[in-house]
């Protein structure tokens, strides 16, 4: 039972991460492999605030969102002037940069040693320590994120995002300030991704740079693509499948030392296979063909 709850919490975190990336990559067509950076920013901001100032969740999570959004703005403003595949390269470079900073800025992040002992959060007087209470917190934040994303993607604003994905130049010729939309959507996606990071930091109570690598970024974009980019339910389905699938490997009795690698091989191979046979994923709308 505990094991099942743990898996559900993980799925919730990945739904937040991949759905927020879906807004950037699936709806707007900006393929980013820097999403683990914003995931990391969320986790580190919450962890550092909780450890150093003992501030409550209600302050930490919004601070993380704000900080991730600001970094998203600083990075997005120059990067989003760069188009297509070159934008992917820029996000890749940013992801590597984030990882080096986390690993080498030892006075702040303690580098590879990580930040242990992140205190358990309190919300409205309740101490969130049991698995069930964490599940409730995850469900609440996940629902909030999805609600925001649903509202956006089903609004006139969301329609413009899809227009930009389909034809950027034409979108300009019908009066849309394309670069502003791109930046706003990148900032928003970055902010929402940090919620996933906050949850992760509180839940595991220990973070280190190894959770926020390029591999993690590729994993998040794989969830979006395999689930179905540009469709609201796509990343939700993707997160459920891709988080659960490797758990089946446990029953094969793989040694723990290689389980993580086998899991990654599995989704890497899935990504290749989907690109060859079904680039729109299970239920996607965007086929990466323009």
């Amino acid at each position, binding site marked *: 039972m505990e094991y099942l709850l743990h898996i559900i919490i993980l799925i919730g975190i990945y739904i937040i991460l991949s759905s927020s990336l879906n807004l950037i990559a699936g709806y707007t067509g900006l393929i980013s492999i820097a999403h683990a950076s914003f995931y990391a920013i969320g986790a580190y901001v919450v962890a550092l605030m909780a450890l150093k100032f003992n501030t409550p969740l209600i302050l930490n999570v919004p601070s993380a969102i704000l900080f991730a959004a600001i970094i998203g703005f600083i990075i997005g403003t*120059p990067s989003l002037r*760069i188009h297509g595949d070159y934008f992917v390269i820029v996000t890749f*470079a940013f992801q590597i940069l984030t990882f080096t900073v986390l690993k080498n800025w030892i006075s702040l992040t303690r580098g590879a040693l990580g930040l242990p002992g992140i205190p358990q959060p309190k919300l409205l007087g309740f101490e969130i320590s049991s698995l069930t209470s964490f599940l409730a917190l995850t469900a609440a934040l996940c629902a909030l994120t999805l609600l925001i994303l649903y509202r956006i993607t089903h609004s006139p604003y969301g329609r413009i995002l899809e227009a930009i994905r389909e034809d950027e130049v034409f979108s300009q010729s019908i009066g849309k300030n394309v670069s502003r939309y791109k930046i706003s959507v990148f900032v928003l996606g970055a902010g929402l991704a940090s919620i996933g990071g906050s949850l992760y930091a509180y839940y595991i109570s220990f973070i280190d740079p190894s959770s926020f690598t390029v591999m993690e970024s590729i994993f998040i974009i794989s969830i979006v693509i395999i689930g179905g980019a540009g469709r609201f339910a796509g990343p939700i389905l993707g997160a459920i499948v891709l988080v659960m699938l490797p758990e089946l490997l446990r029953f094969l009795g793989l040694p723990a030392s290689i389980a993580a690698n086998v899991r990654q091989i599995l989704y890497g191979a899935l990504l290749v296979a989907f690109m060859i046979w079904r680039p729109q994923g299970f239920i996607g709308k965007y086929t990466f063909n323009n």
Partner: protein
Amino acid sequence: MTQIIVNSLIAASIYTLVGIGFSLIYNTGRFFHFAHAATFTLGAYFIYTFNLLLHIPLILSAIFSILGCGILGMIMDKTIFSTLRNRGASALIMLLASLGLYVVLQNSISVIYGDHIKSIRVGEITEGIPILGARITEIQSITVMTSILILMVIRLILKKTNIGISLRAVANNPILAQISGIDSNKVILFSFFAGSAFAGLAGILVSMDIDMTPSMGMAPFMMAVVAVIIGGISSISGIALGAIFLAFVQNLGILFVSSQWQDAIAFGMLIIFLIIRPQGFLGRRI
């Protein structure tokens, strides 16, 4: 100061080797080949296998490893990328497939060899040969000379040989090349072979200098891509120039900020060049 120049040259040599391979594949296959980073790593693990596990002499192991990487590149093209090309897949789809392939390869290395550091350095760590007040180890000087040699050879191949001329034709104008009877699939296959072999070679050289881990390919790959973009993706001499420029700025930067910000310097240069001069120093407009 001489040490900065020497260190820059060593780094630039690696960036150039990886960068030439990357741009060969990009200019003919027309996509960003991320799995190139894993090919680099495989070069190191191949020579580890041949030399330390199978006890084949070092030089022979190196040749086997380089060929192994080249053949692996051809297999990648034959199994995945030519299939995608024939379906008219976009560059973005190929890029994502290459990204997936990178994940598969790097983690396969982890599964087979483990995540801890492996070494094929022979003998104890030497201080290096002093040159004009700087120090350079034997393998480092081999690295620099190899990359200069490869640079000259590849230029010669592109200018004088049939395959080189076909390669340039496909890179410049694929449609025209096809009309004049050039089999572009063959040319792309050759680019994968040569490009991957160069990456493998670079991997071998780095592993003999500073050991190996399964994720060792990522950073040099990233730097090579930045060098390629700075220099101009379509120009071989541009790549070398871009590599030297990047390596020099990075090494000079260490004088002022601590070395963890080297990546930040590269990232900044990447953005600046993509916005201000996307064609690089010597390349055509992209």
